[in-house]
């Protein structure tokens, strides 16, 4: 079902002007940045910089050699000039590397950057009950609340550090959900990833606070390739949130991350994303290319993985957070709001792979297109032979603003077990003049009215976000839609 939608009637919903991207500033900080270019030598240098164990270098090189032989995927409903992978710098770090355990040694400019973004790294100023790992370009600059967490037995640290402190754990799980050869960008990430978060929740532990990673690209012409690995042992629970921003630049920058989640028996992982990379200007100049592979494995029986994403940034989004439901009775969920404005393009959705018996999955996708934005939902629900009594419910709703945007839906279903029960609902609607007039007649201004309608449209997804972030997400949506109607 593809519906390039033109709405002649609602001409009054004119797409207008630009919005301010308030995270678009650059931090002037001395960096140690590699020359652009990618070969085995660069990979050896990254690995050496990080003083990695030998197995990591081998892992990277193996991935790189595979990547060289892989074709760049072109099946997504997105259009962009070919990326020159030799023009990208694959490592950048602030020169004065802080000691991770002391805030005094963190460059004040870095602290300022995060404060400007509303992410204070001083623990006493932090939001209650949220631990943050801040990743600046290629390295993690600060992880908060580590002591509190370690008391509970929770490991939350940069993955580069985990490779020093618990290399066996990393080795055991790295690439176990997203193998190096999985896809073009995952292979590239495996070869060059520089940092990211590592989370380990021991058996029976309910993580005492929300964990959060904040990603920031600062340096010009660098790519960010972060790697996140979360392991929830039997009966444990963790809620993790990531946020992302980047300076406003005329060049496109590449972000190719890999996230792997493993939920053992009776464990639950809730993973939320508020993605606000620089989206480019109203003419489509600049912006982040966001090619991300996220997958969770419900390894044990009764395990549950839930993805919630609010995607408002990036020039291009290519992202399909997925669940492999291996354990019996395991549950996968995907809640998504994707907004494209101006010339933004998003091709996003999920894959739910049902392997175990009585597995169930829920997909709620809300796509909002404004300006010349194109929004595509692409989803796969696959029921394998052994997955008796699998259930899926999918709902894909698109909201259109103006007459120059597009919404597209590509739901795929592969069912190999006759006991499966699948439901799919899809709607496409637009903000009607009637709704707008109704709210204006009650005293609301145009933008407040639009934002209220859009927030209502996204409600099913917002209520899945941790409370502190649901408010943020609503505000973000409001800012992203500024000038979407005239």
């Amino acid at each position: 079902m593809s519906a390039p939608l033109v709405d002649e009637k609602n001409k009054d919903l004119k797409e207008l002007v630009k919005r301010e991207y308030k995270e678009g500033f650059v931090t002037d900080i001395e960096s140690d940045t590699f020359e652009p270019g990618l070969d085995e030598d660069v990979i050896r240098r990254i690995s050496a910089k990080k003083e990695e164990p030998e197995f990591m270098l081998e892992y990277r090189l193996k991935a790189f050699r595979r990547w060289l032989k892989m074709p760049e995927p072109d099946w997504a409903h997105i259009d962009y000039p070919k990326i020159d992978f030799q023009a990208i710098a694959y490592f950048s770090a602030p020169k004065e590397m802080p000691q991770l355990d002391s805030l005094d040694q963190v460059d004040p400019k870095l602290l300022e950057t995060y404060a400007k973004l509303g992410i204070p790294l001083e623990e006493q100023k932090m939001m209650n009950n949220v631990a943050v790992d801040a990743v600046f370009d290629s390295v993690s600059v600060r992880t908060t609340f580590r002591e509190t967490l370690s008391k509970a037995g929770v490991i939350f640290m940069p993955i580069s550090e985990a490779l020093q402190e618990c290399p066996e754990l990393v080795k055991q799980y790295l690439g176990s959900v997203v193998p190096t050869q999985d896809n073009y960008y995952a292979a590239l990430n495996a070869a060059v990833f520089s940092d990211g978060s590592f989370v380990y929740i021991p058996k029976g532990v309910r993580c005492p606070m929300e964990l959060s990673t904040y990603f920031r690209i600062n340096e010009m012409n660098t790519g960010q390739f972060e790697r996140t690995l979360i392991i929830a042992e039997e009966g444990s629970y963790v809620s993790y949130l990531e946020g992302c921003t980047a300076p406003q630049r005329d060049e496109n920058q590449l972000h190719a991350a890999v996230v792997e989640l493993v939920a053992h028996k009776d464990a639950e992982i809730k993973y939320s994303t508020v993605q606000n990379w620089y989206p480019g200007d109203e003419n489509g100049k600049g912006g982040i290319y966001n090619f991300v592979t996220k997958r969770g494995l419900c390894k044990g029986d009764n395990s549950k993985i839930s993805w919630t994403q609010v995607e408002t940034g990036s020039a291009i989004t290519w992202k399909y957070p997925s669940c492999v439901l291996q354990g019996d009775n395991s549950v996968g969920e995907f809640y998504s709001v994707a907004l494209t404005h101006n010339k933004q393009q998003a091709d996003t959705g999920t894959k739910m792979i049902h392997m175990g018996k009585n597995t169930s999955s829920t997909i709620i996708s809300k796509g909002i297109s404004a300006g010349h934005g194109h929004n595509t939902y692409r989803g796969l629900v696959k029921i394998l032979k052994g997955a008796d009594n699998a259930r899926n419910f999918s709902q894909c709703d698109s909201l259109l603003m103006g007459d120059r945007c597009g919404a597209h839906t590509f739901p795929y279903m592969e069912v190999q077990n006759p006991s499966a029960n699948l439901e799919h609902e899809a709607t496409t609607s637009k903000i009607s003049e009637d709704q707008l007039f109704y709210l204006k007649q009650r005293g609301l201004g145009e933008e407040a009215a639009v934002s209220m309608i859009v927030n209502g449209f996204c409600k099913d997804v917002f209520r899945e976000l941790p409370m502190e972030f649901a408010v943020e997400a609503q505000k973000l949506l409001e800012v992203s839609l500024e000038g979407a109607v005239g």
Partner: protein
Amino acid sequence: MLKVTNLHASVDGKEILKGITLEVKPGEVHAIMGPNGSGKSTLSNVIAGRDGYEVTAGSVEYLGKDLLELEAEERACEGIFLAFQYPVEIPGVSNMAMLKAAMNSIRKYHGQDEIKAGDFLKLIRQKADLVEMKHEFLKRAVNEGFSGGEKKRNEILQMAMLEPKLALLDETDSGLDIDALKIVSHGVNALRSPERSMVLVTHYQRLLDYIVPDYVHVLANGQIVKSGDKSLALELEAKGYSWIEGIDDNQTTAAQAS
């Protein structure tokens, strides 16, 4: 309060209002009746400031201001309320959230602080009781899954909350059974005051049994062809529209068919 002078308005180039003159003083209730297609709804939409209507001549003065210069939301903030004939659904937005945002937007317009959450809750519950609306409806999405009668009651609830100076009720009686009509009328009557004016747009006299107007106007073919007191409505009920000069046969047929 409201002074409409020789108002002409068109939709898509077609003239619908052809010179309306009407004055509504504070505290007065005016009923505008007329056959279908006579321009009744157009009049209320033009006053409320809906897009798509072009005023080609005449003026509308409201509390001494040129109303036509104001945006729809400004007119709302200035105290004009339109109870819609077909209230729209706004999925995912609760009745309460919408009303609170509306109230605060109006308060902000007048330089007032936002209403306190506790005060708001108290007020909305009290007003919900006025229109016999169950409190659980307040948490439901605006008009979503509401029956015709519930939607109309919801309009009156909103009116009671926003306390307008001038209320336009567009076919508020349409689609109501007799019980719902009584509830709605009770709500409207409770809001009558010497400072608040109302314009009821209706096709039938029935509503006027419950909300007794001070004046009745008959609108036909874009013009007010007859004005009188409430007895005019009764006369219309008895004789139909055809006896009034200025109403042609086509309109009469349309009125009878509907």
